């Protein structure tokens, strides 16, 4: 294992105070003199010129090159108005093909920006003009859908102001875009994962932990436990494939040390639009000292709910309102789900103020429920409230035996099959259970508006999320994209998608172009989303109205999982 000297390691995790995109100052020499990251521009209006290029950056003390828009990382915030027609001229100044996908935006398929599926991509030197009507409002984002450009910096926020007065009034309005930066070449990261999938996992059970475990429970139980994990080709600390061992986590492009700061006056209502623009990282977000009122999810207004913490899956967005009353700083603390690092930012009455940064939570290893086993044999993982033992809480979806209808799910494409899965929308997920804080779950999310098309689905499509972690293979139903046929929907039909997570990892599943209307465990419409996150051994269903023709991407939004084949085309005919 590579080890960094303590000081270098600290700088690597915390980042440089002066990190960020440096192009504006003209090259490497100027970079050294830079004292603040260039603030990300906000572009308003109906016509935009976006130039994709390479920009030198330095987040950790090592000079690197990022993929940027107009020289910025994150890319400029685009502010649109519901009802406008927007025109976006995107010019490629890279040496490779590029693309921009407008995540969560309803548009014609040929404007969706997925090379090979919705258009040809944008070749070097070329300009592609996107044009579409804006038919929604809220918080969204955009990113490259080419290669690993999303990992190297090509992501930015979209805020669409509603045509009517916004029902969520606030005195301040900030986007808070979380992301993960690596100094490594993402292709190398991917190759390392393929050769050695736990390369970045620094929390594997060691001989010492086996001995500790044996001390508590006896060697026989401890060894049986270890053997069981090995047979499953899984490992109970397998929370994230790519971790703080290579990542520096950013808030609005700023490292924890650079400390992005949003200003407020005590008593003001501050709207924070959280966007997870990471390639691979789920974040658990809290602001010690403040209650967060969640008012929107994936751009859609939800009935307000007060929480102390929420988990944001890759590609999800959550809008929250906070009302800091005191004349002091508050830390926006976003720890990576695997607790290998964190992003940090600050809300403060004056620039330069800061609050203490909490310790990261302890790692919680996965338990029997996450493995889809009926009994909690290991005793290592408490069940969430209401789900102890058999029967569980029918209201949020108790355990059900799972059918595995696809023979292809067995074999190398999928190394484990859970016996029981459950919907448990009220489960905050691994690492957040029973942590003493009020944590948001999907059970809390209820759209304010019902969908215009709220018909019951006429048929059901069941897909299993499958993987073989030891070989870094990821797929739907054990078949990776290159071997799979598209999912065909008839124009105008309403379909229920049932997703069953057969793996032990958490996956954010994104359907382009069409809403995913999450169902409650009793089959009623609950909340409209564009990205649905599934915990290990979880079963979730949602409705889709096939109301826009064309080819749509449907994939796990963990970048390396998508690249590995956890991707399907959905065709609306």
């Amino acid at each position: 294992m590579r080890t960094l000297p303590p000081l270098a390691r600290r700088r690597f995790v915390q980042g440089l105070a002066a990190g960020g995109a440096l192009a504006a100052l003209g090259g490497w020499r100027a970079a050294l003199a830079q004292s603040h990251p260039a603030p990300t521009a906000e572009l308003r209006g109906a016509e935009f010129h976006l130039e994709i290029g390479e920009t030198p950056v330095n987040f950790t003390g090592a000079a690197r090159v990022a993929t940027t828009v107009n020289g910025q990382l994150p890319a400029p915030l685009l502010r649109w108005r519901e009802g406008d027609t927007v025109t976006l001229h995107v010019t490629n100044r890279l040496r490779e093909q590029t693309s921009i996908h407008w995540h969560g935006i309803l548009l014609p398929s040929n404007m969706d920006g997925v090379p090979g599926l919705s258009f040809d991509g944008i070749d070097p030197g070329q300009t592609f003009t996107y044009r579409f009507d804006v038919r929604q409002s809220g918080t969204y984002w955009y990113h490259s859908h080419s290669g690993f450009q999303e990992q190297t910096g090509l992501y930015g926020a979209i805020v669409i102001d509603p045509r009517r007065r916004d029902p969520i009034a606030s005195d301040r309005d900030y986007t808070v875009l979380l992301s993960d930066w690596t100094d490594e070449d993402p292709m190398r990261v991917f190759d390392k994962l393929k050769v050695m999938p736990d390369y970045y996992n620094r929390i594997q059970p060691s001989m010492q932990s086996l001995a500790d475990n044996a001390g508590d429970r006896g060697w026989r139980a401890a060894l049986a436990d270890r053997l069981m994990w090995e047979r499953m080709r899984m490992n109970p600390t397998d929370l994230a494939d790519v971790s703080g061992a290579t990542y520096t986590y950013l808030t609005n492009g700023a490292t924890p040390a650079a400390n992005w700061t949003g200003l407020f006056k005590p008593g003001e209502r501050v709207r924070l639009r959280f966007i997870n623009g990471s390639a691979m990282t789920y974040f658990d977000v809290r602001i010690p000292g403040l209650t967060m009122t969640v008012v929107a999810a994936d751009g859609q207004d939800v009935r307000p709910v007060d929480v102390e913490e929420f988990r944001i899956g890759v590609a999800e967005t959550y809008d929250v309102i906070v009302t800091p009353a005191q004349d002091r700083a508050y830390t926006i603390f976003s720890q990576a789900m695997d607790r290998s690092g964190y992003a940090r930012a600050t809300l403060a009455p004056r620039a330069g103020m800061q609050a203490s940064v909490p310790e990261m939570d302890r790692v919680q290893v996965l338990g029997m429920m996450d493995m889809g086993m009926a009994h909690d044999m290991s005793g290592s993982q408490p069940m969430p409230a209401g789900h102890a033992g058999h029967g569980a809480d029918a209201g949020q979806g108790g355990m059900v035996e799972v059918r595995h209808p696809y023979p292809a799910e067995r074999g190398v494409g999928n190394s484990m099959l859970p016996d029981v899965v459950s919907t448990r929308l009220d489960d905050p997920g691994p690492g957040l259970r029973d942590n003493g804080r009020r944590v948001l779950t999907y059970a809390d999310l209820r759209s304010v508006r019902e969908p215009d098309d709220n018909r019951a689905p006429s048929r059901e499509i069941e897909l299993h999320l499958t993987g073989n972690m030891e070989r870094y293979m990821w797929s739907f139903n054990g078949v990776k994209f290159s071997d799979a046929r598209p999912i065909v929907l008839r124009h105008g039909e309403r379909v229920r998608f049932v997703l069953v997570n057969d793996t032990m990892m958490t996956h954010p599943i994104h359907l382009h172009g069409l809403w995913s209307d999450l169902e409650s465990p009793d089959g009623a419409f609950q909340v409209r989303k564009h990205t649905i996150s599934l915990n290990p051994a979880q079963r979730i269903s949602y409705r889709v109205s096939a109301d826009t023709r064309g080819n749509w991407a449907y994939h796990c939004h963990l970048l390396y999982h998508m690249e590995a084949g956890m991707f399907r085309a959905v065709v609306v005919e």
Partner: protein
Amino acid sequence: MKDALIRLSQAAALALLFTAAAQAAGGHDGHNMSSMAMPAATAPIGKPGDAARVTRTINIDMNDAMRFTPDRIEVKAGETVRINVRNVGKIRHELVLGTDADLKAHYDMMMKDPGMRHEEANAVSLDAGESGQIVWRFDKAGTVSFGCLEPGHYSAGMKGAVSVL
């Protein structure tokens, strides 16, 4: 939004014309007008009250659970009431007085064209934490409904009723 307001006021003007026509026709020879659909807006719900004649004040809270508290109130016919409305939620709510049919029609219009805003005397629209009031004279016995016509709220059950005794 301007268009929507204009359209709304046109609809209201049209409704008034209908009322006048119906009353005129009715007053003439008692001809049966039932074949002519009466616009809902003409149903009697009372009229804006004179603040000097207020005999009673009623407090109503609006919240994010999509409810009014209380959602049932009683007044006497002929009474002028001040309704103090407080938005205790985190998102905008409004209280609009009307008949059920009227509220439903307005709500459907709001869903199609959410640019509309209610600033008439029978309505109060409040951002989070704000308070406002309606002074209203309820002149005929019966039931006057109220609702929040923000998209999604009315259909989620954010409605109530005034029993005029």
